[in-house]
């Protein structure tokens, strides 16, 4: 609302008559884009400011509790210069990419099956919904026992993390399809397979992309758990290594990197969403 004191909606609408005009919806253009960037950067800037105040200015924390910015920056530079950072990021990216792909590959057919067959739903869905609630760390010992200590258990754990949000969302998308559209397919002679591929799955695409975005987030979350498994590389390892060696500065570098990579992945998927399902924003009957 206005920049001055808080107003009631009534007062605001009165003002709209002469001065403040509600332009409706979101603004557009370069200016709004710049404002959005500034708004998004404001909170990180405040946090960095607080970090600097509490460590370098007020010395409220010891370097073991929260290292000052310059020390952390130095640690980051050192990691990059030695090539360790790149090695960790690449290892993590590779695991996330593989695990996420595996999760998608498993989730889409399962969701298609459960969404299109009543029997499959009755048999599979209750179990999957129960397994969905198992915390990531609970799987770790068993994955180690079953799949060894190499890359496979790590990728599998990430795939488990990515699987459930994609599965749940695609099933929801298939369930929520307008039965009238399905009826059109039936009257126009579509087979069950044609109904699935030409009506159910495209109609569920917006849900699937939401699932992909949540799934990608989960993949990064499960990555750290996965890299607890006898690993020597990866951002998760970097975190644990920093903890074991009392290097909170390295841990902060790890946390910030994970946050940025997660955000980047999400932005990429949002872009994909925007291109693939632009129709979902339009209303049509």
């Amino acid at each position, binding site marked *: 609302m206005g920049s001055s004191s808080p107003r009631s909606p009534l007062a605001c609408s009165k003002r709209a008559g002469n001065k403040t005009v509600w332009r409706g919806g979101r603004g557009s253009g370069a200016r709004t884009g710049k404002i959005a960037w500034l708004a998004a950067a404001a909170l990180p800037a405040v946090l960095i400011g607080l970090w600097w105040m509490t460590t370098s200015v007020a010395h409220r924390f010891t370097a073991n509790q929260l290292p000052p910015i310059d020390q952390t920056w130095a640690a980051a530079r050192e990691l990059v210069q030695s090539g360790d950072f790149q090695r960790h990021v690449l290892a993590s990216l590779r695991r996330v990419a593989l695990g996420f792909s595996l999760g998608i590959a498993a989730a889409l057919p399962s969701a298609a099956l459960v969404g299109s067959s009543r029997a499959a739903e009755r048999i599979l869905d209750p179990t999957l919904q129960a397994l969905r609630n198992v915390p990531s760390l609970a799987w770790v010992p068993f994955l180690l026992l079953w799949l060894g200590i190499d890359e496979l258990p790590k990728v599998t754990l990430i795939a488990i993390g990515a699987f459930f949000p994609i599965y749940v969302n695609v099933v929801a998308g298939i369930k929520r399809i307008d039965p*009238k*559209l399905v*009826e*059109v*397919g*039936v*009257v*126009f*002679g579509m087979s069950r397979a*044609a109904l699935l591929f*030409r*009506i159910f799955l*495209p*109609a569920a*695409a917006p849900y699937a992309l939401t699932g992909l975005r949540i799934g990608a987030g989960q993949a990064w979350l499960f990555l750290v758990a996965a890299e607890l498994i006898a690993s020597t590389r990866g951002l998760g390892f970097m975190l644990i290594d920093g903890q074991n060696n009392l290097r909170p500065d390295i841990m902060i570098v790890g946390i910030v990197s994970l946050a940025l990579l997660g955000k980047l992945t999400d932005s990429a998927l949002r872009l994909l969403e925007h291109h693939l*399902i632009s*129709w*979902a924003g*339009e*209303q*049509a*009957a």
Partner: protein
Amino acid sequence: MVFGASLAIRGLGHAFGERCVLDDLNLTLEPGQILGVVGRSGCGKTTLLRIIAGLQAPLAGEVLLDGVSAPGIRPEVRMVFQEPRLFPWRTVAANVAIGFPPGTASADAIAGVLEEVGLGGRGRDRPAVLSGGQRQRVSLARAILSRPRLLLLDEPFGALDALTRLEMHRLFEEIWLRESFTAVLVTHDVQEAVALSDRIVMLDQGRVALELRVAVPRPRDHAHPTSTEIVAQILDRLVGPRAAHPARANPPGVTPSGSRA
């Protein structure tokens, strides 16, 4: 030899729970004719259409196409619904071709039917950018692309504004004259039924309560005197003739004629 299929309905009965919606219904329709089905809401019109389409199995009786029992979905039968029911993620052309496996419908044929419904050149648009009337044109094009021999229409123009509806009547008649399919048109709108049908049946409690032939030459003028007469006749049966209001029947100072009493 007319292209359209002949349709016969024998002893059709259907009920939803305790409520009987079709009761020993018998109808026949000559090839290439348009049958209008009118009646109050809940008289069984839509159920009848869904049974003919094969979307629903009747509890009793059967539907014969060209004298042969025809249960289930048939490739020569197509349907136009009240709502356009287009797929928002497909282009107009892809929506029209929905009845064909991907890539098998000829692009020329699609362009041809779009031209026929007055949407030439709009094939690459998305349904979302079309108006309500244009969307219904797409749904009509979709239904006629495979050259059906029986076309079923469930209140196809009911959601359109009055002027667009008149345009669509004219368009539909033109298409029907060219394609010569048989058609069953279910509608609330008695004027629409009279404007388009060769025969009209009025359903009441699952039975045929009134059956009329509409002998108006085509292409039809929407204000033909015979049409107006038939509309009045059906409306009288549907809602009853207007009872003479005492105050109007005997305006002060005027001698009552007594003729409408």
